[in-house]
């Protein structure tokens, strides 16, 4: 069987590229060099230049992918660890996360209606502000396209991390709490890694908001998809 060595090679190459991109991002921490983005572009470029398909890549890729489920389960740990911070700021966090989910899905719906975007694409866009593994599952459950959803989640994450500092400045929001909640509930893990630059408090608030969005988001996605269908 040739499959196992090929799968192994794919995994090893993916890990090496990822580690290289992490090193690059540490040297030049600009949003456009986010490791997820650069690794993805790098791997797609390799596959394209050797005329290899995505299905071929996934013979190895699915092993890494299968760890996503347990990784989402792992989010329970920071949530438990930060329970005191969460309880102390429970009201603004919960209200912020709910506002984030509602405003995100509402503006999407509005813009998609104006531009007459097909329904299946709209359904794939709805989970865009939720962390990827959950967003994919939500897309799957509500009748969207999970792979398209990954693209939208990436756009929401990276554009959010790039736009947030200017937006917060223009709208005169200097609160660490507000910054953390906005980053975590609009741009999930990528926003949360951006929040790290604002200090530990903002970082922890952002990861809590991201986790809460991942828990409450599927319920909202489910309700909205029921309303649409």
């Amino acid at each position: 069987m040739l499959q196992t060595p090929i799968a192994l090679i794919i995994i090893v190459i993916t890990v090496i590229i990822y580690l290289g991109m992490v090193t690059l991002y540490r040297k030049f921490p600009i949003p456009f060099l986010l490791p997820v983005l650069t690794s993805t572009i790098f791997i797609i470029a390799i596959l394209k230049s050797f005329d290899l398909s995505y299905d071929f890549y996934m013979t190895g890729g699915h092993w890494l992918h299968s760890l996503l489920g347990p990784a989402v389960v792992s989010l329970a740990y920071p949530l438990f660890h930060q329970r005191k911070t969460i309880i102390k700021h429970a009201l603004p966090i919960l209200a912020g996360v709910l506002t984030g989910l509602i405003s995100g899905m509402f503006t999407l719906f509005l813009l998609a209606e104006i531009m007459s975007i097909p329904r299946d694409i709209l359904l794939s866009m709805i989970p865009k502000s939720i962390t990827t593994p959950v967003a994919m599952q939500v897309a799957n459950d509500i009748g969207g396209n999970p792979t398209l959803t990954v693209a939208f989640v990436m756009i929401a994450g990276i554009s959010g991390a790039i736009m947030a500092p200017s937006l917060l400045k223009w709208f005169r929001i200097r609160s660490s709490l507000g910054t953390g909640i906005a980053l975590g509930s609009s741009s999930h893990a990528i926003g949360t890694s951006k929040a790290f630059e604002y200090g530990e408090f903002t970082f922890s608030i952002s990861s809590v908001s991201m986790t809460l969005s991942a828990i409450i988001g599927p319920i909202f996605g489910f309700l909205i998809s029921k309303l649409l269908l």
Partner: protein
Amino acid sequence: MNLVKGIFQLGILYVFFLLGNLLQEILYIPLPGSIIGLLLLLAAMFSNILPVHWIQQGAGFLLAILPLLLVPATVGIMNYPSLFSGKGLLIFLIVMTSTAATIIITAKTSHYLENAKLKREEKKMCSKHLSH
């Protein structure tokens, strides 16, 4: 991290993931199995059924390599080249605009609530001072 211990911890997390999937299938819960697993794990830690140090390092490891675990899924974008031209760019713009709106609305709301709370606390302090 000790390898055996690490694999054991990852095993526990995997069991919670499988349990979540199982519950979703049996009870038809409209939540992803992984999120049900997350909630189960949270409940297990809060009720002291599962000591936190049993999963602490395994969870820390998985969260540290989370971006790597996302890569196989994001590479799937290669099957949708149309997203990067014509109408696809419009969709790009919609997602960005919605994200910007979300950031502003969310930050404003939580900022307002935080200030309201601070003002209430200040008032309490002031009235305390006056009554003394």
